[in-house]
C-alpha cells in the first residue's frame, strides 16, 4: 500500500520583525517543517514499520527549491521519497488558497494513487486548516479532520480514528479507505532524525514537478483570494509592563500577587 503525506515548509516570525508591504522580509523568518506535518510523517512511518506488507511513504510538498532542505527531514525520518511541486505561477500568488492547493494535490493523488493521505490539521503560517478536507472532497476520498488517535494496520479497509473536539471530548469514527486524515499534534511522539536517517535521506529522491508536469495550467492556482494588507495587530492591551532586571520585575510581580491575595506572605 501507499501512504501520501503532505509536508509544508512553514515560516515562523522572529521576536522582532518588520513588515514590508505584503510580506515579512526573509531576514526575520525561520523556516521549519510544519509542526502538524511532523506528526503526520511519524504516523505514516509507524504504519509502514508495523506492516507485514510493503508500505511506501511518499511526501508531497508545494514549495520552492529552498524547501527541499526541510522536506529532506521527512525523508530522514523515514519517508521513502518526495514530490515537490513549484511553478512561476505559484510563486506569483500573494496567497496560495485552499482551492489552488487542492488542485495541485489532486493531480499528485491521481499520479500516486495512495490508499491513505495524511495532512496536518493546519499550516502554522497561513493557517487555513482546510487543505486535507478540500482535497478529500476533490478526489472523492473519505476523510476525518483533527485526528488525535489513529488505529490502522496496513492493508485494512477501515481506519478507526478519534477526532479531538473542543473541551476534552473525543469523537470515535470509522473511516473507509481510501481516505484523507488531518493529523493533530500529540497523536504520537515524532522521532528525531538519526544520523543514519539523515545520511540515507541524501540518496532519496525529491522529484520536482511544475504545473505542466501535472497537466495543469497557471489558472489552476490562480485562486480567488488576494492578500491586500499585512500589519501588526493593534494591541488592545493596557497591560502594565514591568521594566528592568529580573530582580526588580520579580519584586513588582510579587507585590501584584500579594495584592490579589492569591499567595500568602
Amino acid at each position, binding site marked *: 500500500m501507499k501512504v501520501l503525506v503532505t509536508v509544508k515548509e512553514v515560516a*515562523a516570525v522572529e521576536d522582532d520583525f518588520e513588515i514590508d508591504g505584503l510580506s515579512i522580509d526573509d531576514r526575520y523568518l525561520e523556516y521549519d517543517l510544519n509542526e502538524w506535518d511532523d506528526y503526520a510523517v511519524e504516523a505514516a512511518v509507524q504504519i509502514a514499520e508495523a506492516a507485514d506488507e510493503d508500505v511506501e511513504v511518499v511526501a508531497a510538498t508545494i514549495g520552492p527549491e529552498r524547501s527541499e532542505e526541510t522536506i529532506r527531514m521527512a525523508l530522514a525520518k523515514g519517508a521513502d521519497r518526495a514530490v515537490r511541486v513549484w511553478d512561476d505561477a505559484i510563486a506569483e500568488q500573494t496567497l496560495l488558497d485552499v482551492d489552488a492547493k487542492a488542485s495541485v494535490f489532486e493531480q499528485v493523488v491521481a499520479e500516486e494513487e495512495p490508499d491513505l493521505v495524511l495532512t496536518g490539521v493546519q499550516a502554522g503560517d497561513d493557517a487555513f486548516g482546510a487543505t486535507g*478536507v478540500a482535497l478529500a472532497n476533490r478526489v472523492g476520498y473519505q476523510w476525518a*479532520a483533527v485526528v488525535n488517535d489513529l488505529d490502522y494496520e496496513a492493508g485494512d479497509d477501515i481506519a478507526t480514528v*478519534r477526532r479531538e473536539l473542543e473541551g476534552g471530548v473525543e469523537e470515535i469514527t470509522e473511516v473507509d479507505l481510501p481516505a484523507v486524515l488531518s493529523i493533530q499534534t500529540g497523536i504520537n511522539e515524532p522521532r528525531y532524525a538519526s544520523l543514519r536517517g539523515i545520511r540515507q535521506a541524501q540518496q532519496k529522491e525529491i522529484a520536482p514537478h511544475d504545473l505542466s508536469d501535472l497537466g495543469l495550467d497557471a489558472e489552476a492556482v490562480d485562486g480567488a483570494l*488576494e492578500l491586500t494588507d499585512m500589519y501588526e495587530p493593534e494591541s488592545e492591551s493596557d497591560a502594565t*509592563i514591568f521594566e528592568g532586571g529580573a530582580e526588580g520585575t*520579580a519584586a513588582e510581580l510579587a507585590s*501584584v500577587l500579594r495584592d490579589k491575595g492569591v499567595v500568602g506572605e
Partner: protein
Amino acid sequence: MSDVLFVAEHRRGDLRDVSYEGITAGRDLADALGGELHVAVVSGPVDRFAESLNTPEVDAIHTVDAGEEFDHDTYAAATEALHAELDPAALLLPNSVNGLDYAPAVADSLGLPYASDAVAVAYDDGLTVTREMYGSKVETTVDVAGDQFVISIRSGEWAAADGAGDAEISAFEFDESGVDNGARVQGFEEVGNGDVDIGEADFLVSIGRGIEEEENLDLIRDLCDATGATLSSSRPIVDNGWLPKNRQVGQSGKQVTPDVYLAIGISGAVQHVAGMKGAETIIAINTDPNAPIFDIADYGIVGDLFDVVPALIEEFE
C-alpha cells in the same frame, strides 16, 4: 443573491456559543450586502434549537431533521442543498473542529472561494476578510473575488446574539438517502479528567514551550510550591507527554477562570486563549514583546523566564 446563510452548531443536545456569534456576524454581513439572514440547524432536536436561535437579527430559520449528532456527510449534503435552494451570496460556517471537518468540502463542492478562520468580515463592492497569520503575530486582509463565497468564522470574535425574534421557522425537505456514509461516528468519550481539576484553582501558573526541556519543569514546580499555585500548561507540554492532559488549558483542554493566571513562556495562540481569557487577572512572562499573550495581559514582564522565575521564587522564600 444578497442573502447570508449561517449554519449553527450543536453537540449532545446543546447549541454551541459560536451559533449565536455567527448570527451577529451574519446580520452585519447581510446588512452590508443588503440581504436577509437565514440560519440553518441540522440534526438533533431541531425544533427546540430553532426556538433558541430565533433572535431579532434572524430573518428565517431552516431546520433539517436528520440524525442526532454532527456527521460531516449529512452536514455537507444538507448545506449544499440549502445553498442551492437559497442561493445566498455568503455562506457562513463556524471554524470549529466540526467546521474544519465539513466547511472545506462544502466550499469545494460548490466551487466557491473559501476564506477560513475570519476574525472580521466586511463587504463594500466586494468581500474583505480579516485573518491572522504566523500564530497571531500578523493580521492580514484578504479580498475575495466573485459574488458568492464561503467563510468560516473564528469563535469568540463576535458578540453573541440574544433575545426573542420572530423569524419564520420552516422544515427544509432533505433527502438523506443519497448521503454517503463512508465515515461513521461510533461514539464520544470524555478525556482529560484526573487527580487535579485546574478549573477549581484560584491561582494558576501555566507553562508553555518556552520551558524548552522537561527537566526545566522543576523550576516551575518550585514556583508553584513557593506560591501555592496550581500548575497548568499549554498544549505542546501535554503533547510532549511532560504533563497529563488534565493540566492543559485551551480549546481542546480545559477552560479556566482563576483569579490570577500567570502564563510563562506561552505565546498566546487563539486556541490557548480560548481557555483562559476569562481569568480575572492575566500576567505574562515572555521574551518576545510581540507575543500575542501581552494583548490580553493585565501585567507583563518582557524577559527570560530562566532569570525571572528564580527571582520570583526568592520573593516568596
